[in-house]
């Protein structure tokens, strides 16, 4: 049986950064990355950005590591293989080709998968989900000849895809099952700002709707909604959320939305860590157990997990954010921008200027925020979260767009 000192499942930014960190601190211990993708590390962000999608830069720009990087750093790269079972007692991972690997220390950086709706017709040609390099290439190819597209989902992916397809002059209809787009992450006022710019940008919105089935039409496709509306199109792109592919880990580890860890990214079995989109971790800054899907969070968790794996024990403490632009607005999500029973939403909005900031407040402290066209606020909000500033007696000021947030620091 193969024996690896540091075994990493997942070849994305979390897993690769962990491998890099481990190698920088342990020149001799064997390191292996198992990835279910065929490729070396690439930028999952770039493949849904205008630079690549509109071919402003060559596709080859997406690579973040040279071909030779793995060998040069003595990191074994097992690509196109899936881990299917974990025995934490014997410390063995089994792969889908029956190979078994015995580990000393294990990192699970398995990421998140695009959710698939059980809609009849979803397996047909011309229907796309957004996760891997091949998806991006397929969508780019389809968009070259498409005249009409249906985008399913009204959050990050839906918004970005609608923007990219409109930039290619493709007619876009957007379908989502919440009343307003980007709910429940965005509040109503912020949602309405986004819907306004989508409509101004030529997107037809079908909110509060679900898909009944996707049929093949005379030319192209027909997306049939549950209310009977038929949307003719040449391609369909789904962006309806993510799920963590952790079924195979349920018997071995504590899992919920993701793989549960403490603040040291340690999972519930010894010598097992988790990092990135699949990691549901104890965040000691906001005193909550959260799961994040940002690039920088995955990268920095990979680094922290790697350090912990080589014996440099440290908690992961980081407030991260993600920004996106489209239809001439800038949207940013800071910290843990999600609703929960023990959280209150406070919103400041100027609908005319298309500006909004939504705060998520728990126990008198900001734990997360969403902003539209208030990118300068992102850094202030990051500091407010980091420093755990008590704003319990400043709720009115939070809701007042004319109050300068930096006064709270």
């Amino acid at each position, binding site marked *: 049986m193969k024996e690896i000192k540091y075994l990493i499942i997942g070849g994305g930014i979390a897993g690769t950064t962990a491998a890099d960190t481990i190698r920088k601190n342990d020149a001799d211990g064997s390191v292996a990355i198992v990835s279910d993708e065929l490729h070396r590390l690439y930028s999952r*962000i770039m493949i849904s950005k205008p630079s690549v999608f509109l071919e402003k830069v060559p596709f080859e720009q997406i690579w*973040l590591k040279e071909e030779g990087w793995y060998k040069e750093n003595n990191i074994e790269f097992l690509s196109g293989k899936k881990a299917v079972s974990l025995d934490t007692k014997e410390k063995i991972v089994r792969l889908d080709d029956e190979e078994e690997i015995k580990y000393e220390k294990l990192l699970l950086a398995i990421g998140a998968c695009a959710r698939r709706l059980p809609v009849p017709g979803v397996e047909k040609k011309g229907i796309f989900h957004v996760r891997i390099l091949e998806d991006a290439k397929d969508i780019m190819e389809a968009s070259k000849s498409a005249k009409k597209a249906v985008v399913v989902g009204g959050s990050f992916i839906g918004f970005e895809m609608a923007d990219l397809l409109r930039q290619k002059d493709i007619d876009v209809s957007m379908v989502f099952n919440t009343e307003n787009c980007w709910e429940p992450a965005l509040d109503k006022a912020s949602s309405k700002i986004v819907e306004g710019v989508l409509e101004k940008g030529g997107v037809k919105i079908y909110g509060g709707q679900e898909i009944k089935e996707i049929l093949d039409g005379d030319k192209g496709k027909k997306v049939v909604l549950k209310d009977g509306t038929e949307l003719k199109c040449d391609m369909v792109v789904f962006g309806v959320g993510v799920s963590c592919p952790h079924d195979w880990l349920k018997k071995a580890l504590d899992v919920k939305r993701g793989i549960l860890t403490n603040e040291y990214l340690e999972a519930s079995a010894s010598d097992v860590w988790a990092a990135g989109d699949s990691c549901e971790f104890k965040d000691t800054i906001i005193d909550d157990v959260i799961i994040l899907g940002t*690039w*920088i969070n995955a990268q*920095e968790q990979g680094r922290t997990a790697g350090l912990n794996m080589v014996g440099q024990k440290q908690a992961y403490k980081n407030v991260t954010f993600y*920004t996106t632009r489209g239809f001439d607005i800038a949207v*940013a999500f800071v910290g843990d921008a999600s609703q929960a029973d023990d959280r209150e939403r406070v919103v400041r909005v100027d609908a005319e200027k298309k500006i909004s900031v939504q705060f998520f407040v728990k126990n008198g402290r900001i734990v997360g925020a969403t902003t539209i066209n208030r990118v*300068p606020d992102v*850094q202030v909000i990051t500091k407010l979260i980091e420093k755990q500033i008590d704003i319990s007696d400043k709720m009115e000021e939070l809701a007042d767009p004319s109050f300068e947030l930096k006064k709270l620091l």
Partner: protein
Amino acid sequence: MSDKKEYLRDREDSKIGKIVVDRDFCIAASSCIVVTPETYELDGESKAVVTDANAADDETLKTSAESCPTKAILLFDKEGNQIYP
């Protein structure tokens, strides 16, 4: 027309003569700042700017450029040839 900001570097021990940040590509992922906070920070538009082009050595600078998930950081040698990406 892209929005690129150039920062000249004149370290004697360096082969890199210029750092360029393409602000159209920058999404404030901030991995460059994590690598070398002495070199970069985010400006009021949450785009990365170079505060000190001479702060970091070549290896660190290359790592910062390589860490950018949108390849918004370009590096040029002293003759003006692009060396990254």
